[in-house]
């Protein structure tokens, strides 16, 4: 068991071949290499969360959402935010949405010769993708959200932990230019401490006795769960204050670079995918998008499971991904 745990640090992940298309500061835009030309013309732009490594969508061969999209004939791009350092302390969410995403989108336009793209965001990446779609409707052909929390009026335990008066966000970002990765990580694990700190190893203990147990798959997932990324100070402060505490996006009060960010500005087709037992982005936080956007074509899929199981695991690959593939093909 110890060998399985310790070996996870070197577990091979993110193996699908890709090429660098654009870069800015720590951010990298990759295009996944296709062996044959894409059969769908609309490229897919994957926007990942800020606090997790991007390889969750390309965990390992056979358990990779990226690999699935490529096999379905899509041209796939992914933005990896990299690891912020102290020099990124003034990098906020607004900068990511107004200075990074538009330029990455422009790089995709140049690379594919297509004016529009499907923007697909996961978790916080989904929030960034939503803000981008609201500010740049001319570029966004479709918007797909995977467990993206948009309404923080009832944000569950995270909401209580980060409530104004309880959470010293100013003191935290004054002390740390970049919020250490351990802090959000501990916060996430405290949502279900018994399962996080004991259940994981108890399950491993059981599975090690099973003949065909996929140790490498477990190691890849274990590596991702414990491989968090620091949060740039200004981005963390804006995330907690403007999103969690003030709930500005849902209340139509969010502004970025002086421009209002309104869900009602989104007119493209929207697919919202949520998880029923998600504790990180509980159901009340993910349910408003289909009602609030101005799209005539806004649909929702609610999957049984948690925040991470929605993008990896057998259930995701057998049930969810094919549905997403069909939706994307229909909206090409």
């Amino acid at each position: 068991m110890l060998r399985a745990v310790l070996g996870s640090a070197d577990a091979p992940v993110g193996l699908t071949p890709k090429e660098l298309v654009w870069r800015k500061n720590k951010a990298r835009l990759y295009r996944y290499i296709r062996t044959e030309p894409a059969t769908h013309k609309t490229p897919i732009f994957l926007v990942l969360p800020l606090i997790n490594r991007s390889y969750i969508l390309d965990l390992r061969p056979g358990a990779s959402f990226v690999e699935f999209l490529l096999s379905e004939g899509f041209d796939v791009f992914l933005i990896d935010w990299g690891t912020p350092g102290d020099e990124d302390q003034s990098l906020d969410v607004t900068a990511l949405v107004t200075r990074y995403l538009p330029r990455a989108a422009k790089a995709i336009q140049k690379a594919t010769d297509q004016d529009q793209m499907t923007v697909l965001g996961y978790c916080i990446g989904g929030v960034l993708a939503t803000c981008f779609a609201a500010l740049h409707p001319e570029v966004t052909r479709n918007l797909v959200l995977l467990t993206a929390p948009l309404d923080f009026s009832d944000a569950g335990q995270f909401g209580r932990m980060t409530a104004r008066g309880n959470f010293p966000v100013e003191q935290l970002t004054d002390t740390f230019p970049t919020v250490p990765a351990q802090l959000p990580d501990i916060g996430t694990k405290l949502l279900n401490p018994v399962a996080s700190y004991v259940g994981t190893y108890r399950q491993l203990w059981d599975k090690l006795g099973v003949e065909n147990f996929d140790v490498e798959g477990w190691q890849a997932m274990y590596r991702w769960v414990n491989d968090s990324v620091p949060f740039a100070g200004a981005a963390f402060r804006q995330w907690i204050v403007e999103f969690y505490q003030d709930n500005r996006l849902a209340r139509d009060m969010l502004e970025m670079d002086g421009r209002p960010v309104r869900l009602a500005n989104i007119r493209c087709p929207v697919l919202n995918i949520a998880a029923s037992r998600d504790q990180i982005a509980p159901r009340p936080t993910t349910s408003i998008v289909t009602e609030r956007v101005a799209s005539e074509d806004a649909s929702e899929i609610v999957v049984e499971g948690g925040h991470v199981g929605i993008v990896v695991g057998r259930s995701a690959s057998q049930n969810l991904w094919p549905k997403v593939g069909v939706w994307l093909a229909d909206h090409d």
Partner: protein
Amino acid sequence: MTKTEGMGRATDPFETWRQLYDANERAWSEALGEAMGSTEFADSSGKLLETMLAAQKSVRDNMRTYLETMNVPTREDIARLGEIIIGLEEKIDQVADRLDAIEQAVRAVPAGPTGPAGPTGPAGPFGRVGPKGAAGRVGPKGAAGRAGPKGPVGPVGPKAARGPAAATGRGTPATPAKPAKRAKRA
């Protein structure tokens, strides 16, 4: 199962731990979930975090003072350099955005008659040195050049042999003889 195997399993500490976990996992989770989901827990965890941050800030401030005293660049100094570079990169991106916008605007304008030349723009940034070019073709023959400067004096040649005396055509008129002086007798 043999008797020995049965005994081994019963005394296996991991097996005992697993049974204990299975029996209590739900109860532990519910109790912890209830406690940690409360406002009181959120409040106390915030206070704990504040205390830890105050201690951390004190350590960082002391370290900065120490490094400054020792004339060693602090973490903030290095971060500041990084910020300057990131700012420069952003400026370059803004220039590139403007160029893109200009290119798009130029493409969008239909071709009309050529207007007068605009004013000369500022000099652009220095580019990288390019690769060495191929050798050029041989040019046409040039015009004759000017006479060169006078050369150095050459070596002295061999002395020529004296030739026969030439016949005199007309003789020199004879000088009239002077009258002889009378010898002085002693």
